[in-house]
């Protein structure tokens, strides 16, 4: 049995060490840090703590030992308070925020001091693939295998704190936890690391915007912010959060139960929610067609991150973050679907009634075709998001005339392709409505011809679009195009050529040569007037596409020239034998041929046509 004094002697020494560093007691203790002194001092202190701690476990409650028990507890508390400050100090000394430049692939993958995990092994997974311009197939396939924490090749952990400091922190944490000061340890850890994460966020340009702020901003400004967010979010999840998690593991592994997880959540929960708040705010913004593509970008960016999010936030306590990310993703998908629907509505309902002068391409046609061209660029994502066929009919049932689309003949097409075809269908439907505002029926047909032709050319010009629309439907469109051209020809030229018909000119009778001169003169006058009118009017009409223009002119000529030539040939002599033939035969065949070239140029011609030279 040892005499009490012997038992106490080492304890007294230990106590003395601890009391020497009691910051509430001495100025010197306040000014210096144990862990910045020499290693001997550190070891001495830690040993002292251990000894007092040990003695506590053998203290009983009786009499004299109660006093020493109190003393020991008091000493431990002083030690713990001190260690807490030391812990904080060490952490603060290593709280430099992550430099955005360090996300350069060469810096990270080449640096042997950084991430030592298997995440380095796949050389092709470069960091610049975090750039949202590259759709990283590798990432998607590699990250689908999530059996181990480090299997996502896109995660890049950085050592935030050098290993000596980590060891020091561990040695403190161990003692705090075994003395029952776990909570204080978590608190102090979280408070310092949160600052570091916040600083990183600021470096990455992550803004704190309320939902109200986002609703108020112009979409163009938001587009920039979205782009920036996608880049920043990737760095946040794959580097910042992943590295914080690693740090927690390094310091707290094996110390207590799930302490590393508690510290991690304490540090990143707030920032993670703040990060996602922006994406969430975007997903709730009012839907309008121009937002589609950036929302798809955001959707894709987030989807890309989900596997990493699931890995970094895999613990039970971080479930809410995983859930929130999934919710936002699904809302973005819904928004995309909703916008497509909005777009289709807008195309159908576009109400402008002012006819486009000259029957040329309507701005709606351009807008819609450009839009669906872009959509075809995003077909990979949209094919996954758009799963239902376009709703035809019931939504518009109060509208007596609705476009019809038979789906039976469009078997085997993806829902997205069906939607695109539907868009073209309703575009035409709308255009047909607009064409009715033209007073001149011929112009209405020309208008349709121009616009359907534009549609056809746009589809042909984009391989993705063409592939989705399909050649069958393209053929249908081309057929409509031809139909419109035919309609135009009929509407304008039947009338004109009617005056060149044979019937009614021949008179049976004994005196005359068989032709009524007066009727003939009327015919010529009528032809001239009509042709002049048509020529004057239709020169101002416009067919923007050169080839189409020429084709139509040729069609006109094919009908007009032979008919006139034959008429002239048969009946000119009758007119020339009478008075003032120049009043009736105003044009030669060449004149007409030249005049046809004026058609559809889009600007007026002089009214003085060359008279037929005698």
């Amino acid at each position: 049995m040892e005499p009490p004094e012997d038992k106490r002697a080492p304890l007294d020494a230990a106590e003395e060490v601890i009391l020497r560093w009691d910051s509430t007691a001495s100025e010197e203790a306040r000014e210096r840090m144990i862990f910045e002194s020499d290693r001997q001092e550190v070891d001495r202190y830690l040993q002292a703590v251990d000894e007092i701690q040990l003695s506590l476990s053998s203290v009983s409650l009786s009499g004299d030992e109660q006093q020493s028990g109190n003393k020991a507890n008091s000493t431990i508390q002083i030690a713990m308070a001190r260690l807490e400050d030391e812990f904080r100090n060490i952490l603060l000394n290593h709280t430099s925020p992550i430099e955005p430049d360090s996300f350069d692939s060469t810096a990270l993958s080449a640096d042997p001091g950084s991430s030592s995990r298997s995440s380095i092994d796949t050389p092709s997974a470069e960091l610049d693939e975090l750039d949202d311009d590259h759709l990283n197939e590798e990432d998607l396939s590699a990250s689908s295998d999530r059996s181990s924490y480090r299997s996502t090749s896109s995660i890049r952990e950085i050592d935030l704190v050098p290993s000596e400091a980590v060891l020091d922190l561990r040695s403190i944490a161990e003692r705090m936890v075994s003395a029952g000061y776990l909570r204080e340890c978590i608190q102090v850890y979280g408070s310092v690391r949160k600052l570091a994460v916040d600083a990183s966020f600021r470096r990455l340009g992550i803004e704190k915007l309320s939902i109200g702020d986002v609703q108020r901003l112009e979409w163009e400004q938001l587009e920039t912010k979205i782009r920036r967010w996608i880049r920043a979010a990737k760095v946040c999840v794959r580097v910042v959060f992943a590295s914080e998690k690693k740090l927690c593991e390094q310091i707290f592994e094996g110390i207590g139960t799930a302490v590393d997880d508690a510290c991690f959540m304490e540090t990143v929960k707030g920032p993670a929610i703040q990060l996602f708040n922006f994406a969430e705010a975007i997903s709730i913004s009012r839907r309008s067609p121009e937002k589609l593509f950036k929302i798809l970008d955001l959707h894709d960016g987030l989807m890309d991150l989900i596997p990493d999010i699931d890995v970094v936030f895999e613990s039970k306590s971080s479930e809410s973050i995983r859930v929130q990310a999934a919710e936002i993703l699904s809302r973005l998908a819904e928004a995309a679907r909703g916008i497509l629907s909005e777009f289709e509505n807008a195309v159908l309902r576009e109400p402008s009634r002012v006819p486009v002068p000259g029957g040329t391409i309507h701005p709606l046609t351009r807008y819609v075709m450009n839009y669906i061209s872009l959509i075809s660029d995003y077909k990979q994502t949209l094919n996954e998001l758009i799963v239902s066929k376009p709703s035809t009919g019931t939504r518009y049932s109060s509208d007596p005339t609705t476009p019809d689309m038979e789906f039976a003949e469009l078997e085997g097409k993806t829902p997205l392709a069906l939607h695109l075809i539907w868009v073209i269908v309703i575009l035409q439907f709308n255009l047909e409505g607009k064409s009715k505002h033209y007073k001149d029926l011929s112009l209405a047909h020309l208008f349709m011809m121009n616009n359907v032709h534009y549609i056809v050319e746009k589809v042909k010009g984009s391989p993705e679009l063409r592939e989705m629309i399909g050649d069958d439907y393209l053929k249908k469109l081309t057929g409509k195009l031809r139909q419109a051209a035919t309609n135009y020809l009929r509407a304008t030229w039947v009338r004109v050529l009617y005056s060149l018909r044979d019937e009614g000119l021949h008179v049976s009778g004994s005196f005359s040569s068989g032709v009524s001169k007066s009727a003939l003169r009327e015919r010529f006058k009528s032809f001239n007037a009509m042709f002049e009118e048509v020529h004057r009017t239709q020169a101002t009409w416009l067919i923007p596409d050169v080839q189409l223009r020429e084709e139509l002119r040729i069609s006109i000529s094919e009908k007009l020239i032979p008919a006139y030539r034959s008429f002239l040939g048969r009946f000119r002599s009758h007119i020339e034998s009478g008075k003032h033939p120049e009043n009736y035969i105003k044009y030669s065949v060449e004149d007409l041929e030249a005049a046809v070239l004026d058609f559809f140029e889009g600007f007026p011609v002089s009214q003085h046509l060359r008279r037929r030279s005698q």
Partner: protein
Amino acid sequence: MRATDNQGSFLNRISIRRNQVVSMDGNHEQELEDLDLFQKHVADRFSDLLSSTSDDDSVLSIAWLRKLLDAFLCCEAEFKAVLLMGRDPSQISKPPLDRLVPEFLDRVVKALDVCNAAAHGVESVRHYQKLAEIVVAAFEQKPIGDGQVRRAKKALNSLMLTLEDKEGSTHKSAERTWSFGRRGAPSNKDRSTAGNFRSLSWTMSKGWSAAKQIQAMSANLVAPRGGESSGLALPVYIMSTIMVFVMWALVAAIPCQERNGLLTHFPVPRQLGWAQSMIVLQDRIAEEWKKKKEKNKLAGLLEETQRLERLGLSLIEFSDSFQFPGEAERLEEVAAQVSELSEICKKMEEGLVPLQQQIREVFHRVVRSRTEILDVLDQGGKMSAPTM
């Protein structure tokens, strides 16, 4: 689809009917009944909420807030049904709804930010809980000695300082968590923010103010009068009022950013039947708010927080006058208080995360309804636009 002619005229007949002002149509009666039911249910739910409070404790406990949010979700669901189901979409675009519904949606968007601020605020409350748990852990270590008392005192001081925080003002609370100054600190800035538990990431955007948000939400909140008081203007008003009340209660209970100047009065006409219980609750909460404001302690009216505060103060007193081994009577008192404190922590532990989840649920629901209403508004708008 082929019978479009028939369909067209049939639908035309229906829409003409709806446009009639005085209608003997059975449809209309059903609508009136639905509106009445809605009002009755609202009244019942708030009456329940009122009766579940006691006169001694403060109204805003975690449990009560959860009930409140539940009631909100029920009212909201019914409101949506009344507004949207079986209606001609164009009805919502007609006056006075063409003004009232967009105002309502605007309030909704503001409410979303309040939900986010409140969810953040709950994290602050969890922080109080964690500090309190340290106190409990310290005092539960028997026998209570100098070490435990000092430890508890440290945590209690942090707790009191955090509770005393005046939102938006610069505060020195952080400094106290350092037990001493440090030479060679990286920078003064680091030092001063080092112990700041109210870390930056928990705040809303700069300049955002919960008080202003609530005020903005209650702008234009005017009970429909005269001819407007039948029809859909009334349920819109009722739902708006409920929403403002719920958000206001959340802000009063939970420390949200910048609550200075929080409204304590809402212009809900006192004679409205459905609003009676709500008005009483409002008055009581406003009373509590004013009392607290006088004492400059506005970390939140949440009952659990207030009890934490009371117990904390008492325990600080004990700690200040403690001398080992302490008087038996006093120690017994303290043990009882610590036990109570532990109870509260437990309640917080069990209730705060579900509360956050419920706030999130409210967020979702409200977003969804807004989307649906917007869809209907768009549809209705199109239908009334002249088509070819």
